């Protein structure tokens, strides 16, 4: 049975409004996440996500199908985020979920609080590490697709993910068991 959320690329290229609506619903959070992880600022991530959606809308006819549609879209999103950083619009301070966990012992935190802590610590990692880790934890992205998205070699991606995870572990500290 065909997945209801599967995007019909042919219809997308024909400009079907229904298909674009589906596309939007399926990808907006993912696109937003990638950009947010790259630029580290929610307001900028919103603007860039809009630009990316518009670019996809305008350029969908140039999608040749060499890669998966998702990889193509993620790559556009990643490149937009990177070019935003390169234009010198680099955010001065990375936003993170408001918290005051530093004072609290990690073993006493609730599950939701731990997630918030990890999220905030993730944003403290260098851009490439946090983007690689984010893409890795998207369910449908392989190393190869991450490499395509970030325009890097697969080995480099694996290194980033490995180092990113190590750094994140060091930042978060020992996680409690059975939360």
């Amino acid at each position, binding site marked *: 049975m065909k997945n209801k959320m599967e995007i019909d690329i042919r219809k997308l290229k024909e400009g079907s409004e229904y298909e*674009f609506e589906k596309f*939007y619903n399926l990808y*907006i*959070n*993912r*696109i*937003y*996440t990638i950009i*947010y992880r790259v630029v580290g600022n*929610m307001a900028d991530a*919103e603007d860039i*996500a*809009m630009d990316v*959606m*518009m670019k996809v*809308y*305008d350029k969908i006819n140039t999608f040749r199908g060499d890669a998966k549609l998702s990889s193509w879209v993620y790559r556009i999103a990643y490149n937009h985020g990177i070019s935003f950083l390169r234009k010198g619009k680099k955010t001065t301070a990375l936003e993170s979920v408001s918290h005051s966990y530093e004072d609290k012992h990690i073993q006493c935190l609730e599950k939701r609080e*731990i*997630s918030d802590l*990890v*999220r905030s610590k*993730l944003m403290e990692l260098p851009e490439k590490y946090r983007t690689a*880790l*984010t893409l890795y*934890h*998207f*369910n449908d992205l392989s190393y190869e697709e991450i490499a395509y998205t970030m325009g890097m070699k697969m080995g480099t991606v694996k290194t980033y993910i490995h180092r990113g*995870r190590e750094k*994140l*572990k060091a930042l*978060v500290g020992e*996680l*409690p*068991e*059975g*939360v």
Partner: protein
Amino acid sequence: MDLDKILDEIAIEEAPTGLVHRWKVDLMARREAKTRPILWPYIVLPVALSGVYIYITVFNREWLKTLSGVSSQSYNYITAFKSRVLQSINISEFGGFIEGTRNILAFGLNSASEFLSSGSFIIWSIVFSLAIAILSLVWYFFLIPDGERLFSRI
């Protein structure tokens, strides 16, 4: 607790809900822009054509001579064409109808050849081009495009 498991859960951020509305508004504007007819040729072409005529008549007399040559050639061609046409329908048995048609054709062809050979041909061409250019500008700026308000382009 496994860090990977936590990362799996937080990998996707929720985009702000306002983005949906913003996307739809932006998309509608983009679609409208794409479907809007291309208007610039209606202004650029007549202005450019008038410019060429003005350049030829005011600044480049050599070209004017060439144009006059073309004009007199056209006159010769039309005159020859006229004689041939009029000869071919010179049949008396059809009576007044043929005669009337012949007269109308003769008048049309005579007028055309006279107009082409006269100096006013170039002047009228310039006037006509400028008139089209002005009308195009008026149409572009003052008529209501796609339900937009008057003067909306200014």
